């Protein structure tokens, strides 16, 4: 069986949904950050797959994926710092307990 673009997209969608599920359901902030990483990587898979199958000679998609990886690293750094700050102030990293946004 020839592996085509559709397969990549399905894997990517599944990966995105897993990441989204993790973001929406996990109580631990760190796990949520991990969910976000999953979603970013799902996007990377999409970028690489589209680059490979629609414009094989170009490098745009791959470069863009590299930018996203860089961005993800930054995001993880900032996110973890936020988690640390939240923990110091609120003594928890469970997002359902952090309710200062509520009225």
């Amino acid at each position: 069986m020839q592996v085509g673009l559709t397969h990549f997209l399905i894997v990517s969608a599944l990966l995105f949904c897993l990441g989204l599920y993790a973001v929406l359901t996990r109580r631990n902030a760190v796990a949520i950050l991990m969910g976000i990483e999953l979603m970013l990587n799902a996007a990377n898979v999409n970028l690489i797959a589209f680059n490979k199958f629609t414009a094989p000679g170009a490098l745009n998609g791959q470069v863009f994926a590299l930018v996203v990886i860089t961005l993800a690293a930054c995001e993880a750094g900032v996110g973890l710092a936020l988690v640390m700050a939240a923990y110091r102030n609120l003594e928890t990293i469970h997002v359902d307990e952090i309710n200062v946004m509520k009225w």
Partner: protein
Amino acid sequence: MVELAWLIPVFPLAAFALITAFGRRLPGEGAYVAVAGIIASALLSIGIFLQMLGHPTPYEANFRWMLVGQLPLDLGIRVDALTTVMLLVVTVVGSMIFIYSIGYMHEDPRYSRFFAYLSLFAASMLLLVLANNLVFLYAGWELVGLCSYLLIGFYFERPSAARAAMKAFITTRVGDVFMFLGILLLFFTLGTFRFEEIFTKVSQGALTGQTIGGLPTLTVAAVLIFGGAVGKSAQFPLHTWLPDAMEGPTPVSALIHAATMVAAGVYLVARAYTLFFASPGQEALLAVAYIGGISALMAATIAVVQDDIKRVLAYSTISQLGLMMLGLGVGGYTAGMFHLTTHAFFKALLFLGAGSVIHAMRTNDIKQMGGLAKVMPSTYWTFLIGALALSGIFPFAGFWSKDEILLEAFHNNPALFVVGALTSFLTAFYIFRVIFYTFSGTLRSHDAHPHESPGVMTGPLWVLAAFSTVIGFVGAPFLGNPFHAFLRFEGVEAVPFSPTLALASLAIAAAGIGAAAVVYHWKIVPAQALRRAAGPLHTLVANKYYLDELYAVAIVRPVLWIAWALRNFDVYVIDALVNLFGLAGVGLARLYRLMDTYIVDGLVNVVGYAVKGAGGVLRYVQTGRAQNYLLAIALGVIVLLATGLFR
């Protein structure tokens, strides 16, 4: 001079206005202004009189009042012989009384108001006299009625005075209603208010043969007009107000209720004499004569038993006015007016003398007095002159005029002559009864300190006494009766003077005085015995023929009862209806309040509660958990994508 006649009522009117506006700040607290006003009128009247003596052509001045459809209504003043005589009487007697009042009223707290009223009265009376039409005459007529009311009730703190004022006003008003009907009848049949036109039309036979309700129109009109005169001149049966009117200050009694206003009725009959004279069979004239006769005799009998000096004079006034009416009624036009003139002087004199006595004694009761001749010589002598004039003793004023009336009656209506003669006898009797009680004998009251009145009061007394002595000569036959030459009614021949009758009337008067002296001076026949001998007659007369009681039962009570019934109707029906509306309003308001609280407010509250409830429910959406929001965002994106993909 006669062109200035319109000024005559203006002077006192101006005085009235000035006193009303400035009151006590005027010279003499207003009294001098009033006196100046009336004296100015008096001088002008005398001037006009002198001019009229020369060429007695009537003077008229008119102005166009209004147009009734095509009918022009001209009103104005008229100066003729009759007017001139009345002007003289009113202003000259009025001046004396005004001056006298300065002394009589000097301690009164409402001093200036008194003079304001007097001035208004003089102005109204002069307007009445000067009027050449029934409108002005009626206006003056009602104004003098008003002044009379105000002045009778001058001491309004006294309930009796207030009641007397009301009685006078209402009683005369009864007569005035008739008079008003008479005026309207004349206006609607003849279309004019002016005397001259009325009389011309009447004498040309404008109303001849016309009837109203089966009666001749002319007689009806004349009798209706006479109704006003009956009320104003206190003739039977409307005379009951005059004795009560003596509650007013004595100068008022003299001016209004003896000399001038009450004479207005006689003046009215004289003024409208053509109507009476032209009525079929002279029935109207006969009515005047009989009413006059009844009043004269009835009032004279009552005067005999009165103990209040002013009431004696009041009944005397009714009696004398009755005599004038009698004179006019039997055809003695000149005689009636002559008696009016002389009477005005001597009756004013008697009243002012009585006022002087009352001023000194502080009581009206002649039985309390006595022996005043020595203490008050001026008052005594002038009062005596007045009494002699009233009795009709030669040569005083009353002799000439009363004699003329009796003469006319003797020739035209012997029955009424008997009435007149009896009245004369009684007149002399009652006035000398007063004199003997008041001035002779000894003082019966122990707490009175009588003294002679000041010059400002005795002065007018002497002037009036002089007039009362000499004024009769203007009608003296041996001087050619100048009064008759000046004032007469064309078409009536005066009865020639009869020395026999004059002697007879003198004898009657002397008999009256003699009888009074026998009973009250020499006391040969004690008054007690006389009273007992008269028995029920005395009771009847002392109770004034029970006329007041009759009116009380026949008129006053029913009227009061009707008033009471109407009041109850007002209170229980009209007020109840009004209250019902009020209560209905309150009930409706309650209903509206319920609607407001439960429906209008309810709706507002429902909106509030709905919003609050929705907020209460929706607040749970705002969890504050980022994950929930994120979920919503994700779901939203999915929905958007789904709609974008499957459109």
